[in-house]
């Protein structure tokens, strides 16, 4: 399955962690934090969008799993090395796959995901407008059959 999976499935305590609910977090530890507040803020910003690979839907910013700590440290290393935010994210995706991105990239088949809402909104508006038109018309004019019947009645 996933590259990281084998490694963590072997570890009994991690398997146990998987079975539990979101473990309340120690998350970001003081010793991980960078001295430069600008860089640290960027690191936090990035890690809020990265998913912990072994938890159930937590960000690495919230998770206390060891691998999340590793990822947080990697992000900070890359930032200190001078990477841009995008480069850091690319670096992580190259190693852990797009599974870790909580913000799915709007490219390829993901465009369906991103465009489904706006497309449905436009369609719904179109239907509503059409229904509105239809709703008003019948009152204003008679159908041909009704017209014919009316003239017939009036003839007598």
């Amino acid at each position, binding site marked *: 399955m996933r590259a990281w999976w084998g490694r963590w499935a072997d570890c009994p305590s991690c398997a146990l962690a998987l079975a539990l609910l*979101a473990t309340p977090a120690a998350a970001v*530890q003081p010793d991980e934090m960078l001295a430069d507040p600008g860089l640290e803020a960027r690191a936090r910003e990035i890690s809020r969008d990265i998913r912990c690979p072994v938890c159930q839907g*937590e960000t690495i910013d919230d998770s206390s799993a060891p691998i999340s700590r590793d990822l947080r440290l990697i992000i900070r290393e890359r930032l200190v090395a001078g990477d841009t935010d995008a480069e850091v994210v690319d670096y992580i995706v190259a190693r852990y796959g797009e599974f870790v991105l909580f*913000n799915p990239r709007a490219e390829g088949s*993901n465009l369906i995901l991103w465009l489904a809402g706006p497309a449905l*909104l436009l369609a*719904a508006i179109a239907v509503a407008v059409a229904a509105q038109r239809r709703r008003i018309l019948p009152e204003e004019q008679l159908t041909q059959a009704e017209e014919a019947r009316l003239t017939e009645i009036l003839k007598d």
Partner: protein
Amino acid sequence: MIVELGHFALILALMVALVQSTLPLWGAHRGDGGLMALAVPAALIQLALVAASFAALTWAFVNSDFSLAVVVQNSHTEKPLIYKISGVWGNHEGSLLLWVLILAVYGAAVALFGGNLPVRLRARVLSVQGMIGVAFMLFMLLTSNPFWRLAAPPLDGQDLNPLLQDPGLAFHPPFLYLGYVGLSMAYSFAVAALIEGKVDAAWGRWVRPWTLVSWMFLTIGIGLGSWWAYYELGWGGFWFWDPVENASFMPWLLAIALLHSAIVVEKRESLKAWTILLAIMAFGFSLIGTFIVRSGVITSVHAFANDPDRGVFILMILGLFTGGALVLFALRAGAMEAKGLFSVVSRESALVANNILLAVAAFVVFIGTIWPLVAELLLGRTLSVGEPFFNAAFTPFVVGLALILPPGAMLAWKRGALERSFKALVPALVLSFALGALAYAMQSNRTALGPVGLALGAWVLFGALTDLWARTGRNGLGARVARLTRLPRSDWGKAVAHGGLGVTIFAVSAMLAWKVEDIRVVQIGETFSLGAYEVRLDDVREVKGQNYDSTMGFLTVTRNGAVVAELTPEKRFYPVAGMPTTEAAIDYSYLRDLYIVLGDRQQSGGWAVRSYIEPFANWLWGGCLLMAFGGLLSLSDRRYRVAAGAAKRTPVGVPAE
């Protein structure tokens, strides 16, 4: 013995539900009054039997009967009594029993209070309700029986997950289920109307209170869950766009849409087919929610013990009930002829816009929730969809709704004048802009989120107040104030619920924009500053709890030398479950919460301490409560009017205002 009686009662209840779901329906078709009348006692007996069954399971939990598998897996003799009771629904099997109990309660409510319903409609509604009961009781007895005995009972249980041993969470599931299952009423009424081939103003009037009740409970349930996450999970987050949260959020959104479209059916006899469709969808999404929580196909922080068999069974229930209703809808929707025509600028159109935005917003949440599944099965991509997507894709709908709400709510039925509602709203508009600008000038960071959220929330809140005030007429101030107290409760309900939405919008953006966070190592006796406050770590001690061991920090928070709060955050360890938890210490206040979490002891000595200032956190829960209270007010009005005015009410609906 008691357990066997409970088990037997459940099987009997299934039999009664079988009768309830078939004979009255047949009677309604044949015009046989006797068979139709059967629905009422059947619904009442079903409730009595399910309640007996539930009582038996509760008895087993309270008395720690470890011959029952669910009790072993979810309880322990040393657990406090309240959590022994909440343990009944803190697991898959027991929560299903609660689900069925609530379903039976709603069914019995129709049987008892539905005296003013046409006999035929009541028989059909109760029959459909009975069918849902049959499906879920079968599901329980076949795949998830809570009364399963163990051949060799252990001496003690495995304890309830400590995270769930919490007063907030004890009541979160019952409220949610009251909401989810309440939507089954709207569904039953919709299906009954489709079978009948008739939807009129009266139908709208009967459906609305049930939808209002379930929406109210959903609001409280979601609010409780969010509050629990906020204080229990230890980082002050209140909404994670987790699949299971979304599962409760989608029916909530659709219930709001349904509430509003049912008003149009009731007052104007329009949007009938759409309202029926919404009722089916709303309950359909409740079932999808059930599927998501219990099948395990989508990974979530809320893991119930999962089992593929159960998933398949729920999928069958989902397919049967939504699919069946939709087929019926396709066959019969043509018969739902709209009577009330309306112009483009009218209350009806505003409510159509409301419905479009809410339904599409629910769809966006839906596609975001299932996209990882779709991508993995069909495209072979393993990916995640989380908060950033939902924030980007969902927020525009909230903004759109908030913008159109105040003018839309003030438009007249049938044909309105935009200029008039805008003229009345000028003060609200100016005031909200001014507040937004003030916030922008005062805030220390340069985000737009906080000020825009404040302006938007204020616009909705002041808009609701303007609407209320406009209803008091054109006389002098004194007369208008006097009139205010005599306005119908539904007017108050509307204003309070809309105001609550405004407060919620503001609180969410404030918490996201202006949160202050501090993470550091603190030595005992050391003081650090957090915003305008000084925090001192006085001591850290070991404390013994009833069924856990605790490491408790003692902190004093001061401001300008004056003590603001003494906080005791804890790290707990539950030996039976073998699980640690974090108990944040929170000083609640009107404008902000101080939120402190004790972390690990550091090798350098000292402790990791995480502290937050959460601005306007209480306003978020307050906003949820206001929304729910608005629903309650409106409901009390409806009941009064349905009872008192049923005879003299003309079926045409109220004239355009």
